[in-house]
């Protein structure tokens, strides 16, 4: 056990250094630099990817509803935090909207998670009786339905229809100069809670369900109850992640939460390793760094002298990602970390463990 404690301390130091480094970079390079963008968005995506991993990697439920729950969380946050003075302007087509109060950022983040969790609880009732691909299709469908409903004109006074929601507190204006710190703290707390859950007796039973449903049920694990629990908790954190994404973006529109967003997160989870929290975190920073920064040149039409470089055109970046996911699924099925964690590296346990990608 002493060895375990040592590992824990080393991991905590690494995390602390990472936090300090993030804050330092922001102070040195300014809030608008590319590195800071990557750190902010990467952290937000890390939370969402870990929440998806809880479902897909740890419980073995192949769900594609993440974008829908992020949308619910993001909207809940934005609707509740738009300052009173600006509501009339934001809801200009709907007479200032129905909601006529404003709450603080932190309670709003919490409520964003709770509302997403409530949606998940309702959707889970019919959907979680399905298995495998059917579950994926059903959750994907529900995510799309949620997106459509949010844009529905009749509830416009609540959601502002298909118009932008804006002027709510964003990362830039709640902790000016310390946006990375704020994101890291919220994301860190959430991922910490997920980690605690995964390593509790409930986390163990989630993994049991993933490994063998029949045996898990024979061990007295109520399948539906536990699946529902994983689904709701995953959506809770996806909701908070969605709210953070809204804070990062500065304005919010339902149309940006398309299924493509779910695929991006799925890509992160698969690259990081199904069943590895640290893998998801590493992969999300890598993915965001690539898509926002390093691979930007793929989208720009480039001329070298008179020669126009072929293939480089807006959208080509996404083609590259599609190829990457194919290569990963075909040849590196375990992803970066497999189902191990960073702090387990070097330990003999799980020497033969493999990620269970279906």
């Amino acid at each position, binding site marked *: 056990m002493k060895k375990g404690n040592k590992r824990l301390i080393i991991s905590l130091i690494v995390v602390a250094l990472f936090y300090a480094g993030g804050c330092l970079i922001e102070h040195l390079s300014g809030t608008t630099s590319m590195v800071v963008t990557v750190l902010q968005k990467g952290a937000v995506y890390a939370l969402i990817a870990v929440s998806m991993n809880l479902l897909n990697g740890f419980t073995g439920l192949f769900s594609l509803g993440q974008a829908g729950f992020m949308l619910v969380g993001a909207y809940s946050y934005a609707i509740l935090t738009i300052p009173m003075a600006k509501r009339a302007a934001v809801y200009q087509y709907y007479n200032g909207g129905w909601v006529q109060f404003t709450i603080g950022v932190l309670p709003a983040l919490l409520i964003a998670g709770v509302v997403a969790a409530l949606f998940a609880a309702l959707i889970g009732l019919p959907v979680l009786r399905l298995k495998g691909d059917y579950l994926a299709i059903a959750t994907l469908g529900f995510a799309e339905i949620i997106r459509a409903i949010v844009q529905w004109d009749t509830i416009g006074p609540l959601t502002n229809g298909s118009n932008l929601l804006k002027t709510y507190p964003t990362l830039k204006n709640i902790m000016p100069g310390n946006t990375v710190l704020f994101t890291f703290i919220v994301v860190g707390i959430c991922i910490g809670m997920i980690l605690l859950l995964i390593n509790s007796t409930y986390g163990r039973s989630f993994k049991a369900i993933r*490994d063998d449903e029949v045996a898990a049920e024979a061990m007295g694990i109520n399948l539906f109850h536990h699946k529902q629990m994983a689904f709701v908790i995953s959506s809770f954190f996806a909701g908070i992640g969605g709210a953070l994404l809204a804070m990062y973006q500065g304005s919010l529109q339902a149309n940006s939460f398309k299924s493509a967003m779910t695929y991006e997160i799925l890509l992160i989870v698969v690259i990081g390793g199904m069943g590895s929290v640290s893998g998801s975190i590493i992969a999300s920073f890598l993915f965001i760094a690539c898509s926002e920064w390093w691979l930007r040149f793929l989208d720009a039409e480039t001329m070298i002298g008179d020669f126009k470089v072929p293939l480089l055109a807006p959208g080509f970046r996404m083609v590259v990602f599609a190829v990457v996911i194919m290569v990963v699924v075909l040849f590196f099925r375990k992803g970066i970390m497999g189902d191990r964690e960073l702090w387990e590296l070097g330990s*003999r346990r799980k020497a033969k463990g*493999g990620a269970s990608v279906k």
Partner: protein
Amino acid sequence: MSEVKTSGNNVLRLTDITMQFGGVVAINNLSLEVNTGEIVALIGPNGAGKTTAFNCITGVYEPTNGAVYFHGKPIAVNHPQGKMIKQYGGINADKYKDQKAVVYTPDKITHMGIARTFQNIRLFKSQTAFENVLIGTHLRRTSNFLTATFRLNMKEEKAMREKASQLLEEVGLSDVANELATSLPYGKQRRLEIARALATDPTLLLLDEPAAGMNPQETDELGEFIVDIKNKFNLTVFMIEHHMNLVMDISDRIYVLDFGKQIAEGTPDEIQKNPVVIAAYLGVDEE
């Protein structure tokens, strides 16, 4: 032979269990009982419906007709319904018509105290031997997901871990506790599965071919092991087995199934001499 003597202390009692899949009657009017502290074996040629019987007891299948009682309490009662009324190929369909249908899911039945192992070992493959047993202790938890997440259940967690390592010691797997379950040799996987089942605090243990794939020496050891844990944990054991040496050595009574029907019941000696059983196993001369 078809009527079961009803004694007061039976742990498990099946009455008129029929399991029909579409037109196929997998079990036909099976009645049996297992008494406290006994080791009872269920034998029969391949495809006789033995595992199906286990699945009816553990709630994996809902029997088409008949009732299962555990400590006198009905855990499955059914009679042909819907499409099955016309299709039904068994007997005694009217006997349970007035009884309320009872269905429990497998996890509920495990809660009540029936634990099982599987014919083709079903261990949690990404987990260590220790974690496999630890999962078996999950169902007796008192914590909810919040108290478990925030580590307010440290006492219980500690007790769970102690129980798991104790069980591993009982079955002689302490030295491989941190090995991946699927990396263990076959015989140890079987033992691990039994340890995992014991972690659920059962009063009745169902073993589905515990000696499958074992050599004679391993089989002998397993026999001693089963008797050993039965006494240590005050269990009643009901098992399916093909190794006749094992069955004859350790079981108190034996039920023989053939083509879904019970063809014999009795002590090992009686069964060995029973001409019907011999015919079922060896076939009869056409002449």
